[in-house]
């Protein structure tokens, strides 16, 4: 058996099964969907054991040089709390683990988000708009007006009426122009994915059909 051809055929069939969804839901799509979901779920279980659980927890608890680091029992206990959800009587324990995950996640992200999404942006906007040529000045003005009016749009404590409403309208207009540009750019990237898949079907898969049927070289 030629494993390469088998792989190409599997890839092509699953691709066609998934594309059949463009027509309507059908058994081929269902098969591909369940295969995809099931295989990826299984893959991620093993991935997490191999790349998260063993290196980040087990190997820290039992270091290579020998010994036992009891501190790592704490995350282990929290992990067991998550499994306690299986039994209704102990399910409440999982809230401790969930609270820990949400709290630590929010706390750690607060610093990085505030730094990158607020302070760095403010710093990047404080500059002279009068430097450079005419287009540079225009570009700088668009940037500053866009940032300030965008912030006004996201100001929730005052109704968007009067001057506030007009400024917010400028902000959302600039945002929509940016979204339009982003939309076009991403669509181009998606089309390249479609082209890649079409090339696979036309250049890799189609030529194997005559070979399997014994026609041509």
């Amino acid at each position, binding site marked *: 058996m030629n494993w390469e051809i088998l792989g190409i055929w599997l890839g092509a069939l699953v691709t066609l099964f998934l594309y059949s*969804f463009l027509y*309507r*839901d059908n058994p081929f799509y*269902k098969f*591909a*969907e369940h295969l*995809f*979901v*099931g295989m*990826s*779920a299984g*893959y*991620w279980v093993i991935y*997490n054991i191999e790349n998260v659980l063993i290196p980040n927890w087990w190997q820290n608890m039992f270091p290579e040089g020998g010994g036992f680091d009891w501190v790592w029992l704490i995350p282990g206990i929290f992990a067991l709390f*998550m499994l306690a*959800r299986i039994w209704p009587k102990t399910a409440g324990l*999982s809230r401790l683990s*969930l609270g820990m*995950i*949400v709290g*630590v*996640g*929010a706390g*750690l*992200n*607060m*610093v990085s988000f*505030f*730094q990158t999404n*607020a*302070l*760095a942006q*403010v*710093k990047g*906007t*404080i*500059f*002279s*708009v*009068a430097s450079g040529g005419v287009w540079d000045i225009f570009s700088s003005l668009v940037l*500053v007006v866009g*940032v*300030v009016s965008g*912030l*006004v749009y*996201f*100001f*929730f*404590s*005052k*109704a*968007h009426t009067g001057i506030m409403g007009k400024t917010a309208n400028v902000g959302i207009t600039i*945002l*929509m122009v940016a*979204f*339009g540009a*982003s*939309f076009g750019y*991403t669509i181009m990237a*998606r089309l390249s994915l479609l082209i890649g898949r079409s090339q696979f079907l036309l250049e890799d898969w189609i030529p194997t059909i005559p070979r399997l049927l014994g026609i041509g070289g």
Partner: protein
Amino acid sequence: MNNLSALMIFLLLFAAGSALAEDPPQSVVTEAAEELEVCSAVHLEASDTPEDAGGSVSLYWQMEIDGFEPDSLGVMRSDPSGGEELIVTLPFGTVMYTDQSADNGTEYDYWVVSYSGGTVGTSSNRAEAVPSAQWIYKGRIGMLIILFLMAAVIIYYIESGKKGRKLFIREIAGLAAVDDAVGRATEMGKPVLYIPGIMDMDDIQTIASIVILGRVARKTAEYGSSLLVPTSRSVVMSVAQEVVKEAYIQVGRPDAYNKENIQYLTDDQFGYAAGVDGIMVREKPAAIFLLGTFYAESLILAETGRSVGAIQIAGTAMPSQIPFFVAACDYTLIGEELFAASAYLSREPKLLGSLKGQDAAKLFFMILIVIGVVSATIGDFWSPLKSVAEFLRKLVTVN
């Protein structure tokens, strides 16, 4: 003749013997010359890296100007047990290195050796250092102050809200439609599908989404419609189950809560998208909520939702995905509107106070930007104002 030959042989042997006895071999001469002439590192200084989490020693040195350049430099380290090791080889010209592999509290001895022609040349002086961790990183004190001020404002508004002060929040179009969407699903006898994004519970957008899920769950419980929540992360599934269960209990409908409706599909991005698409076309939900962090699967989900005729309310803070939601959904919460949604829907003083505090911070930053830009621009013509802009830039700089 014989005497003459013997004399010549004697003289030759004598000369050769003298040469062997007095002059070292040529290779020895070369090595000695190299050892003398290759320039070495001097004035090596080792110190604990300041304001870090420990485990790090900073090394600085200078190079002799006399002599020829070595091929490379080796940083050597010895610990109290006496074990010596080469920790890194650096190109000639390097005058600093940070050893990140040290253990806190251990006294290390460092020295730098010059390599030339594959052999070890000269060594620098030795320098000692003990790495340790520090509690405070001064580069972020400015941020700490701003965060404390923000927290103070938020607490002030929360307390005001608790005391009964009305905290105004402007209308957010997409959220006003939440009740309508759930009501529509109830009338049509179809389920509501809630997709909390594809990231885990440590993601702020997922947290915001789960808060909104609680509100949507209360509505579905009140109206008696079915709520489906497929998740891409197992922890999100657990949290979603807790939140939905709580909501059903709060409205007195614990019997209507169905744990099986909140299920984990897969961590895989497109596997999840395929699974949710399947749910959409089979269950044909009348209302779909896409709130949270989304990536390339956003348009796949939104387009499929549109094709089944569902009313769709989406929201994300991912700038690259908002355009797809704007194009394919009925209502879109843009960026921070997603975070404001939970406060808007619940009207809880705690959340409203937080939102008001964030608005105060936004107002502060807007003023900062306007003053900064004006002073920087005028500063081009009148220098005293330039320092104002520089001060403001410094204020928001985090090292």
